[in-house]
């Protein structure tokens, strides 16, 4: 395994320690519950917003903690949802008079932990609301499946809800806003390679040199289908068609576009992809108001990317444009 790691069991705690040391004025690391939170939380007249999920998706979600986005994140081990107890303890730590908003990606494990954690917190008299993110169009939402997964689109929920939270919105308003963002956000991802959880030491899956996986999840779950490698533009065509036709996004729509790297794909390739994505979206008659090119929700060192479209309205656009002070930054 070619990774920077000491004892694999310490991978997540050591990463969280690094985040806190890099942001001493704004962030705090609480080892007991594996959580990163703002030092100035709870703020009583502001709803506290938290997200939990497996680790391995960085910067999601621990590096998205900060004024204007999350107030706390409680990650589990790599690709494992946090224990229900962490969700409960984190909720208690951040709870303000206005309540706590739980954001989570729709995976069985996360749902289970957050349901239990919420019950425990509510038993303590804490007001909790939940927004479940499920933007992945790769999973067909048929009756027998567990529903669509939450993937890179979660960024837009965190950002919009985070900005609205700073503006003093109520818990119910934030819940409604979060669900509204989910309702206009769609994503599909693909992978060129698998990835290796530090504690496992071997790749979750391996792809032959000439094959790629379409419709991948953010945990290395194999996706929809495995096909031969293709030129970048053809890959974009397939993802864009799947994403755009799902909502659907129509000519005249104002959109935000995200080309999200899976962790191992260099930014040069992401911008190469964006160039063609941009042209194709414009061809479809949409107006690109905001674009996001980089890593927002990854799968460790997996090579691949996901494409996200968000249908904007003036309020949403304004919330996305608002400032946020989080760990991922350039300066």
């Amino acid at each position: 395994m070619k990774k920077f790691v000491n004892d694999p069991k310490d991978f997540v705690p050591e990463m969280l320690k690094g985040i806190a040391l890099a942001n001493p004025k704004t962030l705090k690391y609480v080892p007991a519950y594996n959580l990163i939170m703002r030092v100035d939380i709870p703020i009583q007249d502001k709803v506290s917003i938290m997200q939990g999920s497996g680790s391995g998706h960085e910067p999601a979600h621990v590096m998205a903690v900060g004024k204007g986005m999350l107030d706390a994140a409680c990650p589990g081990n790599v690709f494992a949802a946090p224990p229900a107890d962490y969700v409960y303890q984190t909720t208690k730590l951040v709870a303000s008079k206005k309540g706590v908003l739980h954001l989570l990606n729709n995976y069985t494990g996360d749902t289970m932990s957050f349901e239990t954690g919420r019950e425990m917190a509510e038993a303590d008299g804490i007001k909790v609301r939940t927004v479940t993110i499920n933007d992945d169009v790769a999973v067909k939402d048929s009756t027998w499946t567990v529903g669509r997964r939450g993937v890179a689109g979660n960024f837009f929920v965190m950002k919009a809800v985070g900005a609205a939270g700073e503006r003093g919105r109520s818990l119910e308003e934030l819940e409604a806003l979060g669900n509204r963002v989910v309702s206009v956000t769609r994503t599909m991802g693909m992978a060129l390679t698998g990835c290796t959880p530090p504690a496992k030491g071997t790749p979750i899956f391996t792809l032959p040199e000439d094959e790629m996986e379409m419709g991948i999840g953010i945990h290395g779950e194999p996706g929809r289908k495995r096909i031969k490698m293709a030129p970048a533009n053809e890959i974009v065509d397939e993802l864009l068609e799947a994403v755009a036709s799902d909502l659907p996004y129509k000519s005249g729509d104002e959109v935000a576009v995200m080309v999200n790297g899976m962790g191992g794909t260099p930014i040069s390739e992401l911008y190469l992809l964006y160039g063609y994505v941009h042209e194709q979206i414009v061809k479809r008659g949409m107006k690109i108001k905001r674009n996001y090119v980089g890593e927002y929700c990854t799968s460790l060192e997996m090579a691949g990317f996901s494409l996200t479209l968000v249908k904007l309205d003036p309020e949403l656009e304004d919330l996305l444009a608002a400032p946020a002070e989080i760990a991922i930054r350039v300066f």
Partner: protein
Amino acid sequence: MSKNVEFVVQVIAKSVLENEAYFSELDGVVGDGDFGYSIARGFEKVLQEWDNMDHTMPGTFLKNVSSAIVSSVGGVSGSIWGTSFLRAGMSLETKEEITRSDVVLLFRAAIEGIKKRGATDLGDKTLLDALSPAVDQLEKSFNEGKDTAVALDEAAVVARESAEATRPMIAKKGRAAYTGERSIGTLDAGAVAMAVLFEAVAKAWKE
């Protein structure tokens, strides 16, 4: 008999730790490869907390085991295994000694808990598909008056057969479900774990 409960939990814990890599590998085929790691951390915690646990009543002991798991294991396994031990412990109420029929009831309670927590049932390609038939066999063997060692052996055989039987199934729960059709032909990691654990307990019982 209460000592037996602790003995069985010890055996399970040891065997989970021994099989950590193997279980993760199974989960990696169509899942995300963390199953072994997750429950291993849980039973590690169980062993760490061992001396702080209440050993007077098997019921409270099993509830302590549940807490250790819930506070250290995330996701599906944390909830599913935590619920199982919690329900099992609750089913024993305040009994200090437990009977063979208590054991069956204890398993039934765990199974009900899993079904509810996991919004699942037999045929979804989960650990239930091995656990449930194995418990049926255990009850049958007990009713036929076979002694415990034999009953455990017979249950272990069924657990193994049932685990193998998950191969043709299509996963309807957990991450494996996202792969739909592609889960056909693979073994469910949780089901295989059940077979491994029943076999380990049966073997240890004889020694």
